[in-house]
């Protein structure tokens, strides 16, 4: 990890552990992961503004070091586990994203309108209808993505909001996977690495506000143009991304940004 603060890591907390590696039985790998939004710039005088930062999507990877191998029968299932339900949620997301009256944003209200096919506006969706969506759809959807015999990933997307918030799974009751029993005893335990990454477009910067140092009259005159705001936000994202490239160039749209990585401790 380089000396520069990993600003993006402020939007999550990550911990991981696994059972003792042995030749008799496999080891469960547990990941405790929690997302929230962070506000940057408030306590730093170099920032001429403050803004909220959160993640629209993320990829969690578990990599076990050779000679360990993943026991594919023990991979944690998708959330929700039922494929039909998962497909339905993704389809509803796609409808919500095409809804101009909600600005293409995902929220309990836009999900309700998309799922029910109604023509309501945001203000017309009742609290009860929103709660039904929040209760029926998991806060975070987890989709397993196999990689190879030593690595597995889960794509994490919000169920009914724009950004990831909360815990996707119970860290103790829902281990990510188990490794196969080790083939031979060894003095040095092979490592289990956990990584969280995202694409540049998955960084969500919102609610950017200039710091309030000028008289009210001048602030009013300086209401920020929407085009300028979006261009400035893009510049900020690119700056954040430069700190955390996993590999490749920032102009490669498919480069992943590494937000957090750690070794799972053996317990």
């Amino acid at each position, binding site marked *: 990890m380089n000396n*520069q603060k990993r*600003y993006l890591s402020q939007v999550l907390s990550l911990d991981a552990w696994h059972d003792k590696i042995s030749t008799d039985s496999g080891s469960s790998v547990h990941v405790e992961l929690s997302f929230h939004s962070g506000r*940057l710039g408030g306590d730093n005088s*170099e*920032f*001429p*503004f403050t803004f909220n930062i959160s993640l629209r999507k993320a990829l969690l990877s578990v990599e076990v070091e050779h000679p360990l191998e993943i026991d*594919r*029968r023990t*991979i944690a*299932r*998708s959330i929700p586990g039922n494929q039909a339900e998962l497909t339905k949620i993704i389809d509803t997301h796609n409808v919500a*994203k*095409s809804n*101009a009256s909600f*600005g*293409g944003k995902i929220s309990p209200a836009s999900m309700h309108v998309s799922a029910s096919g109604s023509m309501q506006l945001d203000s017309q969706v009742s609290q009860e209808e929103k709660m039904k969506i929040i209760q029926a759809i998991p806060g975070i959807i987890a989709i*397993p993505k*196999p*990689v*190879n*015999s030593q690595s597995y990933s889960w794509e994490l997307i919000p169920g009914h909001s724009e950004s990831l918030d909360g815990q996707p799974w119970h860290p103790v009751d829902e281990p990510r996977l188990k490794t196969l029993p080790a083939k031979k005893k060894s003095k040095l335990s092979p490592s289990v690495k956990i990584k969280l990454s995202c*694409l*540049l*477009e998955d960084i969500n910067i919102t609610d*950017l506000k*200039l710091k309030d140092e000028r008289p009210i009259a001048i602030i009013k005159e*300086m209401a*920020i*143009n*929407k*085009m*300028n*705001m*979006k*261009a*400035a*936000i*893009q*510049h*900020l*994202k*690119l*700056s*954040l991304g*430069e*700190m955390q490239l996993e590999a490749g160039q*920032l*102009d490669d*749209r*498919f480069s992943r940004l590494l937000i957090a990585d750690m070794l799972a401790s053996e317990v």
Partner: protein
Amino acid sequence: MSLDKKNLSIAYSILISKIHELKYLANISGRDVFTFYRGADLSGLDISGQDLTGMNFEGANIKFSSFKEVAFDPGAFNGCQIDPSQRWMTDEYGFYVRDLLEFDPNEILLFCKVRPGIIDEFIRITDLNYTYFSEVSMVSQNALRKARSGSVVAFETAQKIFRFISNNIEGHDNSSIDSFKKKMKQPCIIYLYGGNNAKFKEISRERLESLLKFRKFKIDNSPESPWSDSRDTVEYLEWAEDYFKRTRDIP
């Protein structure tokens, strides 16, 4: 690099700029204007009348934004998140010349279509003739004709054509070269598979990457065999991937 004083001050300059045009604002950043807005959120904006040539927006969210009378290069908005009224701004050319030149044709058997007009524009600017082009690039006149008209050609043919273009592009009149280079930088290639009495089908970048990943996995896990890493067809890889998923119980 990073959120240092310089970058924060650039962001501030962008915020308070009195000119509200995307190209101008990207220039303030000092970054490569061609890639600046890739993956950006540009939804709900009125971008009418702006000059967006020389810029690529792949991955950007441009939904519900107005692009009336905008100047842009063909392909600049391919791969964007769009709303149905914006389909006219995109086309099927999803791969870049850079992708084409870096791809190893010995991995998967693929074919190409080139955006019509690109090769002809190069000939017009450089004043080379097709006979010379054909001889030096080692592409037959017939294959060159097919490529120019946007018909399906072998992958290696498209590679030879663009290697020739890349090697011969410098040293000509500046303004026409600049305009040509902008168009060539945008996605202008389609990848396809099939042939051999079957219809050619297009393949997306996402699908190709997942097949390449699976191919690598198959090679790494195959018993010793001199043919395990020979060139595969897309049809074979799709069958093998499906067979593997079914028999190894991969979710």
